[in-house]
């Protein structure tokens, strides 16, 4: 029997496992193939929901789901903490067991490391994990006016457009509470525009100006002075704040460091087209875990999962594996509480946002509910 092991129970891992089960249904029933999904958590978090959680527009019950309800019954789900991946000996170790594999899918994600910016954990907030979002929800509910800085503090980070979305939503939130005129919103970004991609940056800069949102560019924080409540940058600048919403630096999962299979930031060197781990024919990386210069976003994980599952299934069935990942990504961009736009792009096609409108916003609101169908491999 050939064994497929998927490490990671987020979007990338769950989807890859479910797609594999769908492609290999007969082979699994005939006990020629097994699929094991290893997740260290028994519930999956719909991470895009954190953007809504901080404004009380989604709740815990909307954004957590037991993984056992998401995976195909043909998948052997193990709620265990994977501790080491041995690519040369084709084995994954957990806190309880060891799993030999014939095919491996690494879907171990990324995580925020606010501790890497001195002072940030004392003085800053973030919404890029659940614990941080809960604290920020409380801080926003109690905010009575002042200067809020939304600061992107590291690259790469999950969901590249979320800092823009939180800024627009913050503007509407403060207006709703009658304190926008007592507040200053400042957005900071590491490069010389408010977003990496020109068509988006041009639209957002114009919309920031219309809303009286200030922005600073070429702004790369290296320290937060918690006592004097100001940010200090790599470029030698300072910015004061009353409330700091940071997008902290990200790193790959601890297991990638412990296994010695990542780059300096803990991301796995991955072929940009085949998604194979560099140097290994039977190991793949998907989602945030890769070192690819593509967005760390659920849609990327989704499209990558399609490619990897098709190619592994093809090899098992004896066909040539011909699926190719072309860098495809799709992102909704909320431009407030009422409207949104979206972009799609790939290695060859730059994005072109549509004019923000209510329809796209309601599509996003619907998708926030429909995501669980995506995780199941249906939508």
């Amino acid at each position, binding site marked *: 029997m050939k064994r497929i092991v998927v490490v990671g129970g987020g979007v990338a891992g769950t989807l890859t496992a479910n797609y594999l089960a769908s492609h290999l249904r007969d082979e699994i029933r005939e006990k020629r193939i097994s699929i094991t999904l290893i997740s260290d958590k028994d519930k999956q978090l719909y991470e895009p929901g954190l953007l809504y959680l901080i404004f009380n527009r989604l709740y815990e019950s909307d954004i957590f789901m037991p993984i056992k309800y998401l995976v195909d019954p043909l998948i052997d789900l193990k709620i265990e903490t994977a501790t080491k991946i041995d690519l040369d000996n084709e084995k994954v170790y957990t806190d309880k067991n060891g799993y030999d594999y014939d095919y491996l899918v690494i879907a171990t994600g990324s995580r925020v490391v606010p501790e890497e910016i001195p002072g940030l954990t004392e003085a800053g907030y973030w919404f890029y994990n659940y614990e941080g979002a809960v604290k920020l929800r409380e801080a926003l509910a109690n905010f009575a006016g002042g200067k809020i800085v939304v600061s992107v503090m*590291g690259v790469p980070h999950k969901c*590249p457009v979320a800092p823009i979305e939180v800024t627009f939503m913050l503007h509407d939130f403060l207006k709703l509470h009658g304190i926008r005129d007592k507040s200053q919103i400042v957005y900071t970004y*590491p490069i010389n525009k408010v977003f990496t991609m020109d068509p988006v940056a041009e639209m957002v800069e114009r919309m920031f100006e219309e809303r009286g949102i200030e922005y600073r560019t070429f702004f790369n924080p290296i320290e937060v002075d918690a006592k004097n409540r100001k940010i200090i940058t*790599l*470029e030698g600048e300072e910015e004061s704040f009353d409330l700091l919403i940071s997008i902290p630096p990200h790193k790959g999962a601890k297991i990638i460091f412990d296994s010695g299979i990542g780059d*300096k930031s803990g991301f796995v060197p991955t072929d940009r087209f085949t998604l194979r781990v560099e140097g290994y024919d039977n190991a793949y990386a998907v989602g945030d875990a890769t070192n690819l210069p*593509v967005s760390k976003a659920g849609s990327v994980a989704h499209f990558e999962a399609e490619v990897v599952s098709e190619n592994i299934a093809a090899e098992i069935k004896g066909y040539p594996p011909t699926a190719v990942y072309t860098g495809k990504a799709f992102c909704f961009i909320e431009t407030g509480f009422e409207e949104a736009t979206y972009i799609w*792009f790939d290695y060859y096609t730059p994005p072109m946002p549509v004019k923000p409108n209510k329809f796209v916003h309601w599509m996003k609101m619907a998708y926030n509910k429909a995501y669980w169908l995506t995780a199941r491999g249906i939508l």
Partner: protein
Amino acid sequence: MEVKSDRVIDARGSYCPGPLMELIKAIKEEEVGKVIEVWSSDKSSAKDIPEWVKKAGHELIGVFEEDGYWRIVVRKTK
């Protein structure tokens, strides 16, 4: 004279997060004195990256146009 790079970042085909962001990540990770080379097929990198290097106070060794892409070579100075 061609300077030998300590690290080459192939960011060709990248729109997001973008070649400059890859360079900033590398600048944070590498030691002072190291030479980092970014390959970008995005023409704006040839302008944007030198602009950031100047503001951040690092040394721009050169921008070299190759077949369909640019090589931007930077030394971390602080």
